[in-house]
């Protein structure tokens, strides 16, 4: 065994991305038109295969045991290869794979099936995986930018649409701003401590440099950069516009993989670099900051989501709100890091399946030039097309956190961690928020099952796509599996909840 096996998930995605790009560039598909659309079906399958293969490699490594696959410290501290990384590899590849399956159906249906989308997905996933593994500020930034640039490009993918371009531009501007803050923050920290690796930064917390104002300012800036990426209020403003403007598979990818990558980064940095008593103090460290952001994020996102007329935009706000619940788990980390991390990990897995599924169901409910966006578009669909409606309902019920679905257990573990950590008020606010959340998720059910389209309006015409159906199947199975036998998945999350291989 050698280090290559340990790195295999990353390598598979990286090499796969390159190959896919080559294949796309050299393919001479006659059906391709001037705009470059057409004939990308194989690419979607390819990208999915690559990502699921990577996930399979990650699973293999997990089973073999990371500590058994050679000297994983060879790439440390730049890349940390532990079960945490593997868990994220699996989650990210799952999210990316679901997104590319969705893209396979969506791009074709909406006549924007240009092959580079899949390469972008692969590269962005690669970036996210790198981010999850990063143990050093440099690799971290590298992964972040790889991921972000892919996401920017995917957001702008609908070239004909002004909204798409607008969303991408906003995303790019604000994202660059945040990235700049992040890298500037690391620079300051390096100045204060002389370290770029996270563990080193953490270790120097007791030193003079670790207590200097420069370090604190740097940490602040890093924190801002990270919460921007997880789209916490008030750093969330880009998200709805970008999510709405992006083609729906890209939205799904951003809501799922980008968010998961960002949380991986957040967890690593907070635990490794800012994990000492001073920084995790409820009086003056990051927990109260994260808790405040958590409350703001949950409340503001839920409240606004309830006022949306577009289901896609509602799902965008919903993904922000879920970032709020995840931040609750992050806050709970201050008392018991393993507990908090495990809850966040499980939540991310459940959230990935549910959200990708929800976006997939939304895609399935629309068709060419009749993309389902608003609530009205979904009216009566439960009666005419029960299958997509049923799937949609399942994912929404999961997002609302009603048993016996994945979302319920995800919330259960998060709130369990919070209550065990003594964060009663945060938990209560979270509970109340989940009631508000239930309102707008159920509103979709209201339209699907209990309303007829307005007089004169046509019924929605769902598209037909094996890709999307496959994605929904995978998500649905996961949502139910996580909901009905959560223990085994939670064991995985708990197993992944420690850094390093100790």
């Amino acid at each position: 065994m050698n280090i290559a096996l340990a790195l295999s998930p990353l390598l598979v995605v990286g090499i796969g991305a390159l190959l896919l790009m080559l294949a796309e560039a050299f393919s001479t598909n006659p059906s391709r038109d001037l705009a470059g659309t057409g004939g990308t079906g194989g690419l979607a399958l390819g990208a999915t295969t690559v990502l699921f293969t990577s996930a399979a490699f990650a699973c293999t490594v997990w089973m073999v045991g990371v500590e058994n696959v050679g000297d994983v410290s060879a790439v440390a501290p730049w890349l940390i290869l532990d079960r945490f990384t593997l868990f994220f590899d699996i989650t990210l590849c799952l999210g990316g794979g679901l997104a590319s399956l969705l893209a396979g159906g969506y791009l074709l249906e909406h006549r924007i099936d240009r092959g580079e989308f899949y390469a972008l997905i692969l590269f962005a996933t690669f970036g996210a995986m790198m981010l999850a593994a990063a143990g050093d500020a440099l690799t971290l930034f590298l992964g972040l930018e790889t991921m972000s640039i892919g996401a920017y490009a995917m957001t702008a993918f609908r070239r004909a649409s002004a909204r798409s371009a607008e969303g991408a531009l906003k995303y790019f501007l604000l994202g660059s701003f945040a990235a700049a803050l992040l890298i500037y923050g690391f620079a300051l920290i390096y100045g204060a401590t002389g370290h770029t690796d996270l563990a080193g930064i953490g270790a120097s917390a007791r030193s003079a440099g670790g207590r200097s104002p420069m370090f604190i300012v740097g940490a602040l800036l890093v924190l801002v950069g990270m919460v921007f990426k997880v789209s916490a209020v008030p750093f969330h403003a880009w998200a709805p516009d970008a999510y709405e403007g992006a083609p729906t598979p890209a939205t799904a990818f951003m809501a799922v993989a980008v968010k998961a990558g960002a949380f991986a980064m957040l967890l690593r940095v907070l635990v490794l670099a800012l994990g000492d008593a001073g920084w995790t103090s409820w009086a003056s460290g990051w927990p109260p900051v994260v808790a405040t952001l958590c409350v703001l994020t949950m409340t503001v996102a839920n409240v606004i989501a309830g006022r949306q007329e577009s289901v896609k935009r509602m799902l965008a706000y919903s993904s922000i709100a879920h970032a709020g619940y995840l931040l609750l788990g992050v806050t709970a980390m201050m008392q018991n890091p393993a507990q908090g991390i495990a809850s966040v990990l499980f939540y991310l897995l459940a959230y990935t399946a549910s959200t990708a599924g929800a976006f997939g169901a939304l895609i399935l409910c629309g068709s060419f030039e009749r993309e389902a966006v608003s609530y009205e578009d979904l009216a009566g669909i439960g009666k005419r097309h029960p299958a997509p409606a049923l799937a949609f309902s399942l994912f929404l019920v999961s997002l609302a956190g009603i048993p016996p679905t994945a979302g319920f257990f995800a919330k259960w573990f998060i709130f369990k961690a919070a209550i065990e950590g003594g964060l009663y008020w945060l938990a209560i606010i979270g509970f109340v928020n989940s009631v508000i959340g239930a309102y707008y998720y159920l509103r979709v059910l209201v339209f699907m099952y209990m309303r007829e389209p307005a007089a004169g309006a046509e019924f929605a015409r769902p598209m037909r796509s094996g890709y999307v159906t496959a994605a929904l199947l995978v998500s649905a199975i996961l949502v139910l599996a996580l909901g009905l036998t959560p223990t085994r998945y939670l064991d995985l999350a708990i197993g992944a909840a420690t850094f390093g291989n100790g």
Partner: protein
Amino acid sequence: MLSLFPANDYALIAVILGMPLLGAFVNGIWGKRLGDSAVKLMTLTAVGVSFAAAVVAFIALAQGVSEQNDAHVRLTWNAWEWMHTTGGRDGQNIPIDVKFSIDQLNGIMMLVVTGVGFLIHLYATTYMAGDKGYARFFAYLNLFIFSMLVLILADNLPLLFVGWEGVGLCSYLLIGFWYESAPNAAAGKKAFLANRVGDFGLLCAMFLLAHYTGALDWNGIANGASSLVHPGEPWRVHVWPIGGGQYTGVLHFLQPLKPFTVSAATAVGLALLLGCTGKSAQIPLYIWLPDAMAGPTPVSALIHAATMVTAGVYLICRLSFVFVLSPFTMMVIAIVGASTALLAATIALVQNDIKKVLAYSTVSQLGFMFLGVGVGAFAAGFFHVFTHAFFKACLFLCAGSVIHSMHARIHDDDKAQDIRRMGGLRKWLPLTHGTFAVATAAIIGFPFTSGFFSKDEILYRAYVDRTINPMASSPLFKHFKLYEPPTWIGPVLYTAAVLAAAMTAFYMCRLYFLTFWGDFKGWTIGRPSLIAKQELGDEHGHDDHHHEDLTSPGYPPHESPWQMTVPLIVLAAFSLFAGVLNPGFGILKEKPLDHWLEPVFKAATEGAVVFGHGNDAEWAEHLEWTLALGGIGAFLFGTGLAYWMYVAQKGKPAARLAAEFPGAHQLLLDKWRIDELYDATIISMVDSLADTSAALDKTVIDGILARLTALIVAASGTILRAFQNGVVHMYAAMMVVGIAGMAWFFAVPHANATVVDAGNDDYVVSAAPGVGYGYRWDADGDGLPDQPDFAEASSVKLHLEPGKGPITVGLEVRNAFGLVKRKSISVARPQAPISSL
């Protein structure tokens, strides 16, 4: 007999009860298929067999009584275990069984109910002939007999309540029998609701009894009754303030220093009384009975005159041993009775509807009964129940006969019952006239009729009797003042009763004379006139009426068939002669009914009911004849006045009086406007309370909890959405605000500390850690820092001796940016745990 059905398992009761129930069942469900004649057969068989079984049971009872030397005999039958409840002062289980018993008291009731019931059924089979709801009517009527029998035969209060509400239900159904007319249905509802108010009282009485006596069956209540009167605090019911003055909140000054309590006996008695006033149509709940005359006439006779309305008197007699424990309640019963007798009599003076007059007369007579039992003359009161059942049933049935014959001419319910349109009917209805005359003689107290004896007994006892608390001599009450009714109450009650009796004589004779004497005035209304024709066409859709040739004068009123007259004759005979069962004035050596009932009331009356003037029996005996003069005088005066007014002067004085005092006349005609008073006060209060509640629920409760919350969430969503305006500057500004907030948090020092008990009276105060924080302590509480400079030490240890007061520890925190914050922490020894558990 008793060998076949042993007294402790007297299953014949099942037959008495079961036959009417079977009749109700068969007629109710199968009636339409069976046809009218089969229904008739079924219903008469049911009540007839029940009556026969009741006679058998009564004979067995009499046998048992004579065998056991006039003891209180009970023939009981325990059908099945029903339920149980908790009661008694230590919360024991109180079984409540479906158990019936016959004793001297309800044995007579049982005979009256089945006997009079049978006669009325017989009458009704003809009276109701041809009605669409024939089977339904008899199903209800049989169900009523069943419920009434359950009421009187029940061996415990909850089972009595089954019958109690059952008769109320039947009354409701029968009053609204012709439900297509809205007023009938409304009258039924009114009756049920008034009864329900009474039932509320009964329900309260039940839980009080269960709690204080630990039993709900007659024997158990009798055994535990003594605990209803006790000077001790837990045995008294706190009326005001609620909860017995234990309230210590802001408004405690509103509480009187001395709480107002009553004995449990008084509370139970008053609650029971409320129930009895509902069922027996006494003040304040009498209002339903006159309206109840909307039902078919046999119903009025059976339910609203002979049986159901006497249930209240029966209950008072049944629980006499509870009532006598509270002389106050007894006095209230007597006053209620006397005032009801007076009030109803005044109203009856001027009513023109034959059934209304009889209805108010019923209310008035029930008042006499209440007066009787209220002064402790339970046997006398019960005797009046007995005689009243005959003469009032007879009167009502006669009235039905009259209406029947009038209706054949007039076809209008209201006009057929208006005595101003009658007159001279004795010519056409000789039998009805005769029986009516006999029954009237009985009710007005014509000497030596049944009513004469029963009423005079009540008048006499009202004057001479006096109720005192039987527990008064108990040593428990040595230092406790028990209530005693004032001495003037006897004469006042007597006077009121004599007045009411005089009025009774007047209005009954007025009714009699106007109906049967003089000239028939119905010719004019029977005549064809355009208005009458129109009215007929509008108001009545009966098929047979349309065929009538309205241009001819029509038939004269006619006598009823034998099925209707035979019951009249039997009842009239009883009205005349039933008095021999209990004649006063020493006519018989011993009053048979008093003697028969003595074992029942012995427990109650012993020591509780005494004669006035210091229990002076001789004084009381002397007064018997004197006081009878009042009753006879009332009879003579009332009858004479009525004769003068309506026969000699042909009604002119009455018209003159009405013209002279139009206000008073109208007030009496409007029944003192008591209904209106209730409408304006209690009913409208509850109504507006309900309106307020409904409005409150809709606007405030739902408004705040559901709509306002939703509105707030939605509105904040709208407001927050405004920030999401698509402009990048705004987004960047939001980020900057966020960064500024976070920066402020990290820039400002936060001084927090926790105190931990380290044992050995040591306490460790530790400051919350922070990045780059320095700490400076003031552990000795002198207000000055202990060390000159900020240091790393984030905790300080204190020693606090037991009994020493709190120490104030000062903490100064300086963060990496050089900003300083102070905080004082007070360290005190915690109080010792309350228990060592």
